[in-house]
């Protein structure tokens, strides 16, 4: 099915995880440039983010170290290098020299030396491999510093310096070039849709000129969990909505954002926004993908430069709303279930209650993880980390927290509403030969629709 996709950064299709093939040799400096050039580019990107909000955060840290206790990487390794706020060190250093109120003195007396390429190189692992931007640290910080957001900003400089882990850079580059990071080009997508509507006898609207609802998908779903497309269609058709998928704007993942390229982030988001505007959609449904929610629901309007002319809902929110108002009916599912909250949807997205409403309607016996909801532990695959091969060992270490949580919940079924989490779970399951399989909340609903 995906035979004719681009081979510049070949996909790895065999494993449980979908991603770019592990390069034979590490190559984590993009482009042929001198160090000075890289530094200048990083500084320009950093400077872009030095607004008042960031400044207040960077001025406020009291080095109390509490964030370490919230971070899965520190908790699982006891390595102080993984202390979240320390991951910002070069960014902070640049701020003090370039933008802080005492920047003049920092430069004059060289109190904080210039950030060097070597430092950034060293920090590459900390900013990418060992941070999913899950935001637990942002919740423990007694000063209220939103460390996760700052890591996101720090990645901008890293990208401009050409210092991104290679696979993450490659998927982002593919997304920018092909419209999808993982080979789900419009052509591939269209083939999939045709095949799915045939196979499952479900009507999937494509490229309508006018629709109330625009549906976007994650390429992970398209390539690995195509059932999600079927499930979405089933639900929308059951509701009798006037909806569509548009091939000029369907890819909800945003590896531009995860890799740290603000321009690519914008390009990717604008495709969907333009598509929605074009078909006059009143609502955009985001797929089961965590960072897609952050990228569109919260960053979308800011990229657009004004409020979006449509509502943005995560599919779980959409389900909850329609179950609540009675338009959608489901059968009872007599099972015990535990739910994994995707960080970007729950903790950092604010849509924590929606899946619980859905689960309540399904009548399942919900066993919450401990801690669950807003303080749920990350699966370890977010923030693009799942794509980075050299981070695998570390990722498996932190995944053990997740396995323990799931096992301790004692539930029969493991649900989540993020396909990236889901592939991380699949990969972890394969690695540890674990007996728990991750399932999609959307698919469970679609499978149990009542007439």
């Amino acid at each position: 099915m995906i035979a004719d996709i681009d081979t510049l950064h070949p996909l790895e299709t065999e494993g449980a995880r979908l991603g770019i093939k592990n390069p034979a040799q590490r190559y984590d400096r993009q482009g042929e440039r001198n160090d000075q050039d890289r530094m200048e580019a990083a500084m320009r990107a950093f400077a872009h983010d030095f607004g008042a909000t960031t400044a207040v955060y960077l001025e406020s840290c009291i080095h109390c170290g509490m964030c370490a206790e919230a971070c899965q990487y520190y908790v699982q390794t006891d390595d102080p290098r993984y202390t979240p706020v320390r991951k910002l060190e070069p960014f902070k250093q640049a701020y003090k020299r370039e933008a802080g109120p005492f920047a003049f003195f920092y430069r004059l007396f060289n109190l904080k030396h210039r950030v060097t390429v070597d430092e950034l190189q060293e920090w590459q692992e900390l900013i990418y491999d060992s941070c999913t931007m899950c935001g637990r640290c942002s919740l423990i910080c007694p000063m209220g510093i939103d460390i996760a957001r700052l890591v996101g900003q720090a990645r901008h400089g890293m990208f401009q310096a050409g210092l991104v882990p290679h696979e993450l850079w490659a998927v982002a580059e593919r997304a920018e070039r092909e419209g999808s990071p993982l080979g789900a080009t419009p052509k591939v997508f269209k083939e999939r849709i045709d095949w799915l509507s045939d196979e499952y006898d479900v009507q999937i609207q494509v490229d309508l000129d006018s629709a109330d609802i625009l549906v976007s998908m994650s390429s992970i779903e398209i390539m690995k969990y195509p059932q999600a497309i079927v499930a979405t269609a089933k639900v929308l058709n059951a509701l009798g909505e006037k909806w569509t998928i548009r091939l000029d704007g369907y890819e909800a993942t945003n590896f531009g954002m995860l890799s740290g390229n603000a321009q690519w982030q914008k390009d990717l988001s604008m495709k969907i926004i333009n598509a929605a505007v074009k078909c006059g959609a009143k609502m955009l449904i985001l797929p089961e993908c965590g960072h897609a929610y952050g990228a569109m629901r919260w960053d979308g309007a800011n990229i657009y430069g004004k409020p979006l002319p449509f509502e943005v809902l995560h599919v779980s929110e959409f389900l909850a709303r329609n179950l609540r108002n009675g338009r959608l009916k489901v059968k009872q599912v007599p099972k015990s279930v535990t739910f994994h909250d995707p960080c970007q949807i729950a903790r950092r997205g604010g849509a924590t209650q929606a899946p619980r409403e859905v689960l309540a309607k399904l009548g399942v016996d919900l066993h919450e993880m401990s801690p669950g909801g807003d303080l749920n532990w990350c699966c370890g695959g977010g923030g693009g980390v799942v794509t980075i091969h050299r981070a695998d060992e570390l990722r498996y270490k932190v995944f053990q927290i997740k396995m323990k949580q799931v096992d301790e919940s004692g539930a029969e079924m493991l649900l989540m509403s993020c396909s990236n989490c889901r592939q991380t779970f699949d990969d972890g399951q394969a690695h540890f030969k674990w007996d728990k399989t991750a399932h999609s909340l959307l698919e469970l609903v679609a499978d149990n629709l009542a007439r």
Partner: protein
Amino acid sequence: MSHDESIGESLRKQGISRRAFMKFCAATASLLALPPGMAKVMAETLERARRPSVIYLSYQECTGCGESLTRSFSPTLENLIFNMMSLDYYETLQAAAGTAAEAARKTAMKENWGKYLLVVDGAIPLGIDGAYCTIAGESAADILTEAAKGAAAVVSVGTCAAFGGIPHANPNPTGAVAVSAVVKDKPVVNVSGCPPVPEVITGVLAHYLTFGSLPELDHLGRPTVFFGNTIHDRCYRRPYYDEGKFAKTFDDEGARNGWCLYELGCKGPVTYNACPTVKWNQGTSYPIESGHGCLGCSEPDFWDKGSFYSALSTRNWSGGTVLGAAAAAGVAIGVGAAVVSRRRRAQREKEKQS
């Protein structure tokens, strides 16, 4: 008066019994915080000692110190000490005047050269060559310098003599200085206070007579036995300080209850003197006991340390303008820093575009 007879003989002549003398020694030893056994030693030593010559000079002063010292003229216990000395020159008390008085001083100095005790009260004006205070055509500084040459030791009585006191207070128009600023080569003991506690003066003299030396002194030249503790440490109102009970005004409930006067400006915590233990007027009371905070009169420059009625921990400066200017400058530079930072950012953006 003969300097040859012993103190014991002299006292007997004045009808003072040995028991009376022992009583004096007991009281003095107590005053000097000597071990009680020392009273006996003191009595035996003084009994046989010669009466020393004392020359008492007064300069820029108010006679308060003299008043303090000689308030009572009957031979009481406190000033029995004067019966043990030969006070050969003291302008305030002596009968002689004019050239006769000066002659008495010169004679006493000559006869007891190197042995007499020089007591000084009042500050010494050095302005316009000492012309602000002259006696018989000689400046205070000159007389003092000459008198000090032949003295065994010098006792500066009162804060003016000890530290310059009120004449020295800002702006010090006469260039007044302490005795110790003029007398450099003789031991000087400072008995400060405005005026000093009389028993402190007699105590120092008794110590000198008994031991032939000056008592142990603190860094300001004051006898530690009297100036070793702060007023605050020995204050009977101290428990109220520790309990946090303070009089807020001079006639509030707290003042009537005898609470601590710290808030009313008492300088007790930084003032070293014997007031709370020796007290005044034969042990009647002392300022704090009478309801007024300590002024700190036994400390240098007590006159120039801000209001007597503002609490010790408060500021002793005014500087609204300085603070206002500092705040304004802070805001201005803050704005400047932000503007520079924004410009740098804009410039980076531009470079990025190009």
